């Protein structure tokens, strides 16, 4: 990574406060309830104006600087407030990919646009039926065009450019940038369980600008950075679920006293609290390991993703149990947190995928 600690501590503090405020403003369980839970143009602009998409991009390209740890901090706010803003697609994935694989020209033209939010990008790395955690893309690059199918592309309805993973005829990995209105591209939109919209891209010889990928390991490193950012979003969702549950336990009464008085529920909430803290610790450590290029960073990433996904599930399921019948309604926030946690768990490698990688790395 090129991002180590190039963000001034004071800037970091101020920025975090800005993001927190913005995120809070755009939090709405009503919007989560559908039917289409998307980031509106106003929301996009609000984040862009505050420079949120500039995070992680080098100052020489109009960015704010900052590393994976900084991106993960924003993701945490997104998880805590259940936002639909496609920060992950743009500031995390697109910016990292372009910065790493783009030509000097492309970086100079595109990164400043990403930073100021004047372009909205989507990332199409996942092949149908995969866990999106590795770099074995089945789409084919030949001539200047890409053909193939990509699944679960987020915010594709609003994006004007896509970054697509593919292989050339020699089996070498490439990234192709394509335009929204390119001939040969068809897009099918569908609603995910949490009411966000994802899309399947079908590419039939779509003309692409090619970004060379010298080594598939480089892509893997960026998929890993994405995994840590999603895990961080899950940690944020866990923190919110814990706070909401605790508040509820203090006011909801049964048998003449607040349910939070019951020792069994107290201990369950302690377990939930520890699960959150534990996940926060591994995610922060994995982000720092990436920022500092530590030798055990791959392992740290898998620990972070597996732990956050598992803990997230435990926390959200427990939160529903403590809410009782109320937790089972669409009106209640908890279910929406559970759905976000489940979806994050299925992206950039499931807990099982990362546990398996962990055991292979161990050998």
């Amino acid at each position, binding site marked *: 990574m090129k991002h180590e600690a190039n963000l001034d501590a004071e800037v970091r503090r101020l920025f975090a406060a800005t993001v927190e405020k913005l995120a809070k403003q755009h939090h709405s369980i009503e919007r989560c309830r559908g039917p289409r839970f998307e980031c509106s143009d106003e929301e996009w602009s609000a984040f862009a104006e505050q420079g949120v998409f500039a995070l992680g991009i080098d100052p020489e390209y109009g960015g704010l600087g900052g590393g994976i740890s900084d991106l993960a901090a924003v993701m945490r706010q997104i998880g805590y407030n259940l936002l639909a803003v496609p920060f992950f697609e743009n500031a995390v994935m697109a910016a990292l990919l372009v910065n790493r694989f783009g030509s000097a020209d492309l970086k100079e033209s595109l990164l400043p646009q990403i930073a100021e939010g004047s372009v909205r990008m989507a990332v199409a790395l996942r092949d149908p039926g995969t*866990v999106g955690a590795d770099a074995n893309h089945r789409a084919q690059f030949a001539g200047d065009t890409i053909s193939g199918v990509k699944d*679960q592309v987020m915010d594709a309805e609003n994006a004007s450019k896509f970054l697509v993973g593919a292989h050339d005829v020699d089996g070498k990995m490439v990234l192709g940038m394509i335009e929204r209105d390119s001939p040969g591209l068809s897009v*099918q939109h569908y609603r*995910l*369980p949490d009411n966000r919209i994802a899309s399947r891209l079908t590419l039939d010889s779509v003309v692409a600008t090619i970004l060379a990928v010298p080594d598939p390991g480089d892509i893997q490193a960026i998929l890993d950075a994405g995994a840590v950012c999603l895990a961080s979003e899950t940690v944020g969702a866990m923190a919110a679920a814990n706070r909401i549950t605790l508040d509820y336990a203090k006011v909801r009464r049964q048998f003449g006293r607040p349910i939070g008085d019951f020792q069994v529920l107290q201990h369950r909430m302690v377990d939930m609290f520890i699960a959150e803290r534990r996940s926060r610790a591994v995610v922060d450590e994995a982000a720092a390991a990436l920022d500092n290029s530590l030798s055990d960073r791959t392992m740290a990433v898998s620990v972070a993703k597996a732990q956050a996904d598992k803990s997230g599930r435990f926390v959200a399921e427990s939160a529903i*149990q403590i809410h*009782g019948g109320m937790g089972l309604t*669409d009106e209640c926030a908890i279910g929406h947190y559970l759905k976000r946690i*489940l979806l994050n*768990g299925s992206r950039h490698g499931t807990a099982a995928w990362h546990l398996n990688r962990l055991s292979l790395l161990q050998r």
Partner: protein
Amino acid sequence: MSRSGELAEFRKEVADFCESRLPEDIRRKVLLNQHLEKGDFVRWMRILHEKGWLIAHWPEEYGGKDWPRLKRWVFENELYRLGSPWLAPFGVTYVGPVIYTFGTEAQKKRWLGPTARHDIWWAQGYSEPNAGSDLANLQTRAVRDGDHYIVTGHKIWTSMAQWADMIFALVRTDPDAKPQHGISFLLIDLKSPGVSIRPIKSINLVEDLNEVFFDAVRVPADNLIGEEGRGWTYAKFLLDNERLISAEVGKAQRLMEQLRFFLRETSAGGRPLIEMPSWRSRIAELDLRLRSLVSLCNAMFAELEAGDDPGLSASMLKIESAELLQAISGAQIDALSEGGLSYQAEALDPDSPVPHVAPEGASGALGEYLHGRVYSIWGGSSEIQKNIIAKAVLGL
């Protein structure tokens, strides 16, 4: 023939009947965890009634065959294993037995027939916003006015009330009695003026739960079951039945089969998940739990026939079965997540449907998982059941 031999033969008879008579469209919806219509339930229950099985657990004098609990349990669970819809228990298992056990001759005459034939769809009116697991806190009032009660209050979490004709409700008839006294058991026509029903959208987006509001609803006093103030006793009698049938091992077996199917149909790194070491041992663990639960159910139902108090067995089976059902559907989600959770995808443009990449039935699995959170909550949460056992069995 030994008893287990008899039951095995009966199980086979049920399976054969199910094979030949369960309508294919209904079976398919169930196996794919899709949403069923009222008509689906009623159609199948009438077929079972024709066969004499729907109320076979009732006494002969009321049209049943005096089946012991164990046989009823085997019957239901064999059905569920093979894709039968849930046998809506509100009439035939909940209120029916309350009526023939505690009702007057006139009440039996009036209500048992249509309940047995499923001409009445019943709803259960127990929970209230501030009285979930804690029924002593019931607020819905019924005030006697001549030969009527005037009912005012608010019930919640009422399953399938949107389809129901009648509700059996716990109402407070004596506000001055101790909390658990002063409660009565009343049958209320949902078409009465003053009743309104508001559906609750669930976490899995269906609207099978409801709030039922009573605004000075006039209910004939003839609809009071048993004595005023003894509703708690009848409710407990019914709750024991409710918890007993919640040991849905047939459903667990079906979900387990479906899990194996998903694992065969989903690949990671080119290999079906079912061949992966971690999945093989997880399946073995779940299978162990499932088989143990079946044995526990057999043992408990045998003890019930020997006359033991059903309440405690019921609590135990409810806890265990909830945990297992949730563990299996949690495993389904894990299996399908490897395919990306896109299985729940709902195409926005009907002209451009998304070709599913997930195995058949996957689209219902998330709904079942989300809905399944309810198993450890409804009819008294697992925590409440453990309190009951701690007190009654362990003497703590």
